[in-house]
């Protein structure tokens, strides 16, 4: 009787060889590339005279550096223009499918993979981006890799990897009104620590996770790396298969039924053995915000900023307060904001925009706040406009932008200025992350961002629902 996890099954079915180092040479089913981590990889390929082993398993888009207001070429930023040209050249020379600015498939790489049905259960996936575990929502082993590994995958379609341990995280029970997938993952990271997942894959399970939509599961898996876990996944089930039906790259007809049977078989066995199991109660999770400089430094919105001596990592808390300048013990709701950002691969899908629009509808952005909504893909933007979300946002005083990564990491013109404080639905509150070395980032759900934008300070979204 099999007692294997999804991780075991997918890892073993993709193992090519065990290397002399003890590492596994793992076949990669799907490789997603973009303009930031591919240029040097293409340069190394050319230098070494290598060919792309499986161009048909490689897909490219442009997301990180794309301006979200005026997208005309050449970009005002010469470096950004050079990056997109190198990607265009590389994909053309090596015969790789590329969804550029003029493609209806363009968008954040972790939004378009699932949207197109490229991401499927039981596969291995790699992308030169930290938040690749997003695709784990489908029961995919999805690895965020570095530029030299991007070259490895281009040239060989394999990676040399150390096998991970598997920690199952059960979130049991039902989430309360106003508590979203983002709150769940922020809570998990706060409980287990930003380094807690080192050497592990996280398997998210339990009734709260099973009850989530695919969009919500993607939000949870997306931030696995912020908890130190290279890989995070949810076992595929009917919710997964329903999502994949009729997507552009999903199998069709009988082939789909056969695929579903296979996809079902890769889920962890009921009696699978884990290296570690963590039990959490959904009822303990409230709308959550970060107060520091890493995603594990978070607190419930009804709480106060922690005292340094009460925080397990005192040195980390001290460094956080040094940067933010906030006073321990301050009520969370007393923190004012200057910028509100709804977007990023964590929270820019249609359901995220709907949740923020529900809060924004019939209200107005506070005069001290600059607020922007950046859809995760051209397709998300189109669907949102079809149901009038753009009008709701614009009437409320939010800017409605074009698809891209935007102010999640400020590689495009969307940046914080000086000491600005940002309420952000993104994934990292590291110092300097949103474009200003002295700026401050508070991570939260898209609905909470909208609530903060309306009131001009951190707000419990449950008051506005």
């Amino acid at each position, binding site marked *: 009787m099999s007692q294997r996890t999804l991780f075991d099954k997918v890892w073993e079915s993709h193992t090519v060889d065990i290397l002399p180092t003890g590492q596994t040479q793992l076949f990669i089913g799907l490789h997603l590339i973009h303009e*930031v981590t591919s*240029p*040097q990889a293409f*340069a190394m390929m050319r230098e070494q005279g290598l060919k792309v082993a499986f161009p048909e398993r490689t897909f490219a888009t442009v997301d990180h*550096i794309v301006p979200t207001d005026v997208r005309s070429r050449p970009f005002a*930023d010469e*470096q*950004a223009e*050079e*990056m997109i040209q*190198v990607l265009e050249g590389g994909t053309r020379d090596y015969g790789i499918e590329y969804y550029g600015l003029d493609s209806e498939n363009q968008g954040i790489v972790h939004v378009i993979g699932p949207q197109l049905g490229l991401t499927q259960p039981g596969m291995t996936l790699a992308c030169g981006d*930290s938040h690749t575990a997003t695709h784990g929502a489908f029961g995919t082993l999805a690895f965020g890799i570095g530029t030299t590994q991007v070259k490895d995958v281009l040239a060989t379609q394999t990676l040399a990897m150390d096998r991970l341990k598997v920690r199952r995280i059960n979130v049991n029970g039902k989430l309360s009104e106003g508590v979203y997938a983002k709150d769940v993952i922020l809570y998990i990271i706060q409980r287990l620590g*930003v*380094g807690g997942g080192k050497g592990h894959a996280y398997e998210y399970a339990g009734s709260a996770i099973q009850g989530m939509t695919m969009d919500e599961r993607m939000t949870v898996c997306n931030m696995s790396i912020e908890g130190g876990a290279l890989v995070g996944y949810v076992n595929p089930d009917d919710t997964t298969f329903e999502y994949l039906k009729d997507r552009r790259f999903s199998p069709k007809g009988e082939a789909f039924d056969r695929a579903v049977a296979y996809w079902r078989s890769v889920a962890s066995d009921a009696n699978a053995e884990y290296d570690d199991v963590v039990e959490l109660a959904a009822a303990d999770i409230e709308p959550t915000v970060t107060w520091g*400089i*890493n995603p594990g430094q978070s607190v419930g919105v009804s709480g106060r900023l922690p005292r340094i001596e009460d925080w397990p990592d005192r*040195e*980390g808390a001290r*460094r956080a307060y040094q940067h933010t300048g906030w006073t321990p013990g301050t009520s969370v709701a007393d923190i004012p904001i200057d910028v509100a950002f709804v977007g990023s691969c964590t929270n820019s899908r249609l359901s995220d925009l709907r949740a923020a629009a529900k809060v924004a509808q019939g209200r107005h952005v506070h005069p001290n706040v600059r607020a922007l909504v950046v859809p995760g893909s051209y397709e998300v933007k189109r669907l949102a406009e079809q149901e009038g979300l753009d009008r709701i946002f614009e009437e409320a005083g939010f800017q409605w932008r074009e698809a891209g990564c935007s102010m999640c*990491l*400020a*590689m495009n013109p969307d*940046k914080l200025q000086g000491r600005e404080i940002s309420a952000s639905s993104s994934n*990292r509150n*590291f*110092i*300097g*992350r949103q*474009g200003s*070395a002295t700026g401050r980032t508070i991570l939260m759900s898209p609905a909470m961002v909208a609530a903060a934008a309306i009131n001009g300070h951190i707000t419990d979204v449950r008051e506005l629902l």
Partner: protein
Amino acid sequence: MSSITAISGTGIPVRGNDIDTDRIVPARYLKEVTFDRMGEYPFYR
């Protein structure tokens, strides 16, 4: 192909824990298309 058994260079101790990637190279400086000029950006503030 010969195996790499030794690497030499200058070692620099970095103080503190939890050195996040945006401290190693802030994301907004990841715009080089070759490795040539990357040397300017580590631990840039």
